[in-house]
């Protein structure tokens, strides 16, 4: 009986150790909830808002940053406007686009039309891209969202934004907002700070960590455009004395649009 109980205790202790390590030995990352399509009010959107939408989709629902990031898993897109012009003249290009805008849209929905050397699927001699068609399958971007990403890429690479904000496009999101039971949106900015663990690195009124800038008076020091960019693309402007790649780059993916605005209002009010 003693041996039996020892074996039982040993088994429970071993399992308990594995469970405890998984709970307390590593950071608990809460994965983003299933994506929820935004209801797009395109008619009242300015081009800046449309570009911001593109940025959110790029790093969120579109999952583009999984590969198009600093690690170099997919071609860099910083100078895509300039690069795209050259690709249109490349003898390997077999698509139908004649403008940069058309090329960008084409490469989002037919990525294999032109595969950048070294980035093709293994064994296809750069004839087939590993990138999926963003309008289908698991990503399922609407025409408006693809246009928004195109506008964002043009803006990001310093090119002229030629994309027009679409109108009259049936918004797929309208049909699907009833699907699933995503988490409730949070409208309390302090609860948002807790939910997205902002306090772990940022201090407000003496509370919080010091790995990021102190935000106690951030509203007096920075405007809303800067703050929005800092939330959606933290590496765009890294505050002096702090290191890049510290803040999660996918807050735009994790937050609802309304939550982003709530947080922005809160930060802008810290004076």
């Amino acid at each position, binding site marked *: 009986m003693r041996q039996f109980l*020892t074996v039982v205790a040993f*088994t429970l202790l071993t399992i308990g150790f*594995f469970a405890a390590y998984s709970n307390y030995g590593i950071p608990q990352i809460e*994965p983003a909830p299933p994506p929820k399509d935004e209801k797009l009010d395109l008619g009242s959107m300015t081009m800046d808002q449309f570009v911001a939408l593109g940025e959110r989709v790029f790093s969120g629902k579109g999952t583009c940053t999984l*590969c198009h990031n600093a690690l170099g898993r997919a071609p860099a897109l910083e100078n895509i406007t300039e690069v795209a012009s050259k690709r249109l003249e490349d003898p390997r290009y077999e698509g139908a686009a004649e403008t940069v805008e058309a090329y960008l849209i084409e490469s989002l929905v037919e990525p294999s039309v032109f595969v950048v050397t070294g980035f093709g699927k293994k064994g296809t001699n750069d004839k087939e891209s590993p990138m999926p068609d963003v309008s289908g399958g*698991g990503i399922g971007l609407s025409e408006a969202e693809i246009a928004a990403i195109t506008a964002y890429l043009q803006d990001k690479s310093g090119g002229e934004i030629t994309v027009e904000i679409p109108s009259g496009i049936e918004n797929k999101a309208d049909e699907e907002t009833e699907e*699933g039971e995503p988490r409730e949106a949070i409208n309390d900015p302090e609860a948002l700070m807790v939910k997205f663990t902002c306090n772990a690195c940022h201090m407000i009124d003496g509370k919080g*960590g010091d790995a990021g800038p102190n935000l106690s008076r951030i509203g007096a020091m920075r405007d809303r455009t800067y703050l929005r960019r800092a939330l959606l693309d933290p590496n765009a402007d890294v505050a002096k004395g702090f290191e890049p790649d510290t803040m999660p780059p996918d807050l735009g993916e994790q937050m609802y649009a309304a939550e982003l605005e709530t947080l922005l209002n809160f930060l802008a009010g810290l004076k």
Partner: protein
Amino acid sequence: MNGFRPVKIGMTVAIFGLLVSLVSLALPGFEQSAVYAAEPAADAAPSFLYEPAPKLTAADYPTVAGVNSRVVVWVFAQLHLWFAAFVLAVPIFVFIIEVIGMRTRDKRYDDMAYEFIKVSITAYSLTAILGGGLVFSLILFYPHLFTYLSTIFSESMFYYALLFFAESAVLYIYYYGWHWLQGGFKKWVHLTLGLVLNAVGTTLMLLANAWLTFMMSPAGVDAAGVFSGDEWAAVHNFLWNPINLHRFVANIAYGGSIVGAYAAFKFLTAGTRQERAHYDWMGYNANFIAICALLPLPFAGYYLAAEIYAYSQQMGITLMGGIFAWLFIIQAVLIGTLFLSANYYLWCGMGRSDGAKRYTKYIKYIAIVLVGAFLVWFTPHTLVLTNEELKALGGPHHKILGPLGIMPAKNTAVNVMIIFTALSFMFYRRSNKVAVVSWEKAGNAIQVALFSAGLLNIIFLGVYHGYFTNTVYKVAASIPQVLTTLVIIVASITLDSFIYRGAQEVGPLRWGRIPERAQYALFLLAVAFTWLMGLMGYIRSGIRQHWHVVDIMRDASSEAFTPTLGYAANVVSVAAIIFMALVIFIFWIAQVSSAKTLPAGYWKE
């Protein structure tokens, strides 16, 4: 009499399983989903039109107050999988041990094989019961998913039910006929039954694998989920074979670890020296089986991960570099536990031989290397740091230690662990032998050169690709590293067998002369394997994220979110405790079945 109870339970559940399958075929919505084309061509074979995958809302998922449907299905699936892995693996090595016994005419092997299969027979009944529970909970909580999968896999599900009957029949004849089918032609008949048992069992696994891999890499359907009618295409989907290979190898390692725990339990509770010797020998063989399958397992796992990446770059990155990345640090702890406990058991086992002293001085170096490799695997790529730490590091990654967090270093670590485990095994084999060939020294020198050159090559490849190539080429080291490891192991063991051909024995191996703590290494192996399988099952299923069938059928239930690692670990732990309790129950039942009570004065004389 003892054996009839599991037979009855097994047959009852088998009938239930078949009934469930037949009922599912008649479920509302099942037949309606496959309707004849409105106007089939007169001279063409009848063709079916299938409906697209349903688009569900949260209201489409039945709920039971106070019951978390996902956790119920999860726990049933995990328990069923653990038992299924065990009962599919045991007949594989029972067959091999029986063949060894037949060839060597050493009855100990035959007795051991029988004892292994005896342990699995109760587990078989539990496997069926838990499989029934899984089907029931799926139909109850996820009826539309079950209907959709049943539509596509109707034939394979029907054959699965038939094969289950065949498996039951063959297993019971194999087990109950063991002592009857002995000697000469009868033994051949019994061996053939063992082969048939394994063929049927493996086919069952392949069919079940097809259903789950279809959910990860659907085939035979269009973008809307409309089934083409070609079930083979759905079965033979992109990830089917990688999962088949990985599960086949892992099941053997797992089965070995569970019977090793059984032998350890029996060793600890043995009343006589003979019993201790017998169960020590059994534990050694079980551990040997587990290690043999454990060594190629990381390669099978790597192949599976590479194929997941090849199927979908997004899924691959989610697996290795996204939200699941930290899971591989937990995995490192578990793999380290497996390798260290398996090696520790071997080192303790060297005490059975009086000639082991020649090799014990090397053990500490092997231990240091194993712990070092474990620490490399354990090193995460990204750490949560304070600002001061970030400044001190000059960024989120240390310039020298940072690359230890990425694949080239991990691959290097696991290859080194495998090679040194093989070295432990070689020392164990040598411990009771004295070579008699004249070229022993030259042979040893060749082996040292082989190990040294191979390890240098593996480390060079790891360092070069870890520090001096860009992201796209980081994984390029893996295949040459694996090949190097295989060459070292195969060549050195082959050479060893020539060096020790006709070798003298130092003395008789003293089975049973092993410390009790070594038996706990066997328990640790079994528990770590169980928990690791649960964790990896979570990630395999979890990378589908909010999809029942990736890109085809979305999970719209309230439980569609991907849980945190802590949450998943808690579910796996609770399931593992239930499983281990059932396993201990099986051990106890196996012990009870061989106990006899002679109640004095109870029966009429």
